[in-house]
């Protein structure tokens, strides 16, 4: 049972106060997209052993969505950050690099 810090409330929220929202930083494909691209958007997801970026909602709290960077192996949480961004913040990526040198996730590293 995880605890994640809600970046909006600055409290450690219990996993039972949160709602897991799957992979972060998906790019929406819509009308005009190729079938393959649209299907990738709908169905294809990362399943890494290691660094992962996820969406969570502080559902029994402020109701805000946020992003979390987490290691799926050790459950170490590298950080949580705003959902209103297209990429993990630079300082967070650097922090991950010091802990997991050479990590990559989709286009990020």
């Amino acid at each position, binding site marked *: 049972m*995880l605890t994640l810090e809600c970046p909006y409330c600055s409290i450690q929220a219990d996993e039972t106060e949160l709602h897991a929202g799957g992979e972060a930083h998906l790019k929406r494909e*819509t009308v*005009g997209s190729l079938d393959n691209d*649209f299907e990738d958007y709908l169905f294809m997801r990362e399943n890494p052993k290691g660094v992962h970026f996820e969406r969570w*909602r502080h559902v029994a709290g402020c*109701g805000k969505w946020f992003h979390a960077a987490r290691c799926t192996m050790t459950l170490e949480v590298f950080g949580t950050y705003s959902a209103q961004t297209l990429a993990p913040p630079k300082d967070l990526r650097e922090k991950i690099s010091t802990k997991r040198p050479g990590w990559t996730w989709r286009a990020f590293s």
Partner: protein
Amino acid sequence: MSTRLATAGRLLDRASTMEFTFNGKRMQGHEGDTLASALLANDQMLVGRSFKYHRPRGLVASGAEEPNGLVNMGAGAFFEPNQRITTTELFEGLAAESQNHWPSLEFDVGAVNAKLSRFMPAGFYYKMFIHPRPLWKHVYEPFIRKAAGLGRAPTEMDGSSYEHFYAHVDVLITGGGIAGLAAALAAGRAGADVLLVEQTAHWGGRAPVDGAQIDGLDGDTWVKETVQALESMDNVTLRNRTMGTGVYDHGYALAYERLTDHAPDQDGPRHRLWRIRARQIVTATGSIERPLSFAGNDIPGVMLAGAVRDYAVNFGVSLGDRTVVVTNNDDAYRTAITLKDAGLDVPVILDARPTADGSLVQQAREMGIRVALGKGIAHVNGAKRVTGVSICLQAGEGSEIEEIACDAVAMSGGWSPVVHLWSHCGGKLIWDDAQSHFRPDASRPPLGADGLGFVVPAGAANGAMSTAEVLVDAFQAGAAAAKAAGATGKTGRGPTGDTPKEEPMAPVWLMPQGASYKLRSKMWLDYQNDVKVSDVQLAAREGYESVEHTKRYTTLGMATDQGKLSNINGLATLAGALNAPIPAVGTTTFRPPYTPISMGAIGGEARGELFQPLHKTPMHDWHDANGADWEPVGHWRRAYAFVRGAETVEQAVQREVTNTRENLGLLDASTLGKLIVRGPDAGKFLDMLYTNMMSTLKPGRCRYGLMCTENGFLSDDGVVARIDDDTFLCHTTTGGADRIYAHMEEWLQTEWWDWQVYVTNVTEQFAQVAVVGPNARKVLEKLGGMDVSAEALSFMDWADGTIGGFDCRVYRISFSGELSFEIAVPASQGRAFWDALLEAGAEFGVMPYGTECLHIMRAEKGFIMIGDETDGTVIPQDLGLHWAISKKKDDFLGKRAQERDHMTDPTRWQLVGLETTDGSVIPDGAYAVGEGVNENGQRNTQGRVTSTYHSPTLGRGIAMGLVLHGPDRMGEVIEFPKVDGTSVKAKIVNPVFFDPEGEKQNV
């Protein structure tokens, strides 16, 4: 025979006497006894039968590791099986029954299995019951079900109550032995918030039994003073009878407090499940003694040496007058010395080691106890209790040198740290050659959210095996945990212990080391599950190399004790058979809980009325008092129908439909979701969410809309009202309010966060009543207030105003095909408004109606219902709702998905109406069959029913369904087989059965 000694018993209050029964037999014990010690005091050596062979079983241990002593306890609503008698504190009137035997404990027919043991080897179940296949269902499975399981399932609902307690602490310490106390002392002094839990009723663990000297004090005195010191610290909480059961991610831990098991007459919850978030966890869980594998080591009277000592010192109970001690280490000598001190006879100490000269060994010799080095037990004599042992050379094959009469055997194969809690969340182990056990590898702890270790092992649980080492290790552990948790205070000096010098133990996995098959097939590794040395060796020969596979194949280490005694011996045996080093074989996975915990504790308060939150509308109490037949809708309870007098629910539904169509019906529609969507981009946002165009809706008007997921599937529907240029009110389905609110927030926050839109859920702010039927306008006009005429408020208009003095918002919308007003008032006035409508409506034939009437009326009109016509695989196009899908919009959620080839496939089943040819009702969920059969020989299907009712309006069965090419097949008759083998035929018709022109609603 086992008996109560005249003296000793540090935990007993000999002045008090308690009566209890075992298998109906009346016995006596003292306050402070466990059920185990009290049974032994009454010479009840035989406590159960083993699982497979029904071998007679006595107690082997004195604590949570006991594999044999499991009983049924209590009666009726307080009956519970598989209670471990070593951890059951005695109370007045306790009633226990032994398990797994028939007809009686003393004479068990199942014991014939033991005679067949040659034919019940490892993997017996897999080998025996696989062929012939047809026998499985009616012969093998019933047999196994009858034979399987210990104890009996309760037949009544549990009469006790339970609770949870959430605790946040800096340092959780599990185990209240001297290690836990020393760790708590350090962490408490450092200023950390400390919770110290101990599974038994007593502090100090086994140190006082073992004669530990700490800081110049005897064990009992030091423990007492230390507990007092800890209790005086505000930042330290001590809970006994509380077992640390599991360690989970990010410092989460469970502890299981048994509040009233020892005092069942006491009020309050029986168990409390502590749900703990700790920054650091110290596992001071001690160690467990290992049995030795010699033939007949399961005969009642053979017990762990430490347990023999526990019973003597703690409870003044002797297992027998003449106890043979058999060991591979110095510690067991303590047992011999204790027994001798108590005036009992120890004919011999059989020490498997070739030499032994530690201070305890010397002391035993000085007391005149015979010490036989290099010797072991060839076999134990006796059946239901020990009568003697045959001695052999440990180095040999088991030739008998000498027979010694005795009535008890105290065995010690060394001690294994309790590493369960350390291991639950990923702490790694290392093999300690000197002690022949696995202990925590402190360099590879379980990792927390910060990537750092959050569990610190302490004392014997960390492989520190002497009092002196335990105290140093545990105090350091407590200090380290407090520091890691952020406490900065000084810990001062830790306690120091005085320990006699002990010589190294020697691993002994087989006694004698060259034992024959005959001996090996009588050496029990797992007492509870009847797994012997020969079984594990057979498994290895049959190719089982993984310890996890061997566990499942042989049942070694399964069931309620999960191999607390058998694991190390079992895997050493497996390693021996595989000729591999023990650490290469490894351990099975340690999983929580440490010992079984009650289902009640897991459920906590969530039972009966508190099982689930029940959502109630402001009119709930009226419904309840007026015949509501409740139906769960989401977490709401809605009235399915209001039953009057002697009528059936079905008759009530038919009455409600007829009355609403002819007179006046009232529906409590408060549960419908109501979401306010506001902002300059609200229209644009709703255009993305709904399939139809919402931005063109005029203020004062309503529009029905459909919402799809990004997958294209229909997710929700409802009427949207435009309040002003910037503000919309979106109605959702009853079950959809929270979901659609979350859906809106998700898209706003994570995709279109630059759009200026705020959403809020006002579902419960309003009580909403649908006033429906030809007399609907009359009742509103009678109540008086706003103009509700057709001219002032036409179909799909809404307006604010007052009715009967109530501030309200009226929506002129209809889900029934009747003249209908949905009226929202503040929830606090909902009940009063409902009452006012009933009173004013009396002259117009008012009757409240329930959800089934609503369903029938909407089906008569061909309106779809989310959850009936939709099931997560249906798109609006399947339901003929093309009119509600905008062609003008570039995009909306689901639009792209609906262009996928599977979605545009002309063979997707389409919505039609169905009219039975015989007037009957098609069963729910029935499928329409077509020509031919599929590859499984089943009839091909060509459609299914989605809603089906008896329509009182039409006097026949009507249904809606999805049918292959349905809309092109009007008038065709298709067949729906029923489960009884007959079938019902139905004609494909337009789904609008009633008033297709809308003449009734548009008045």
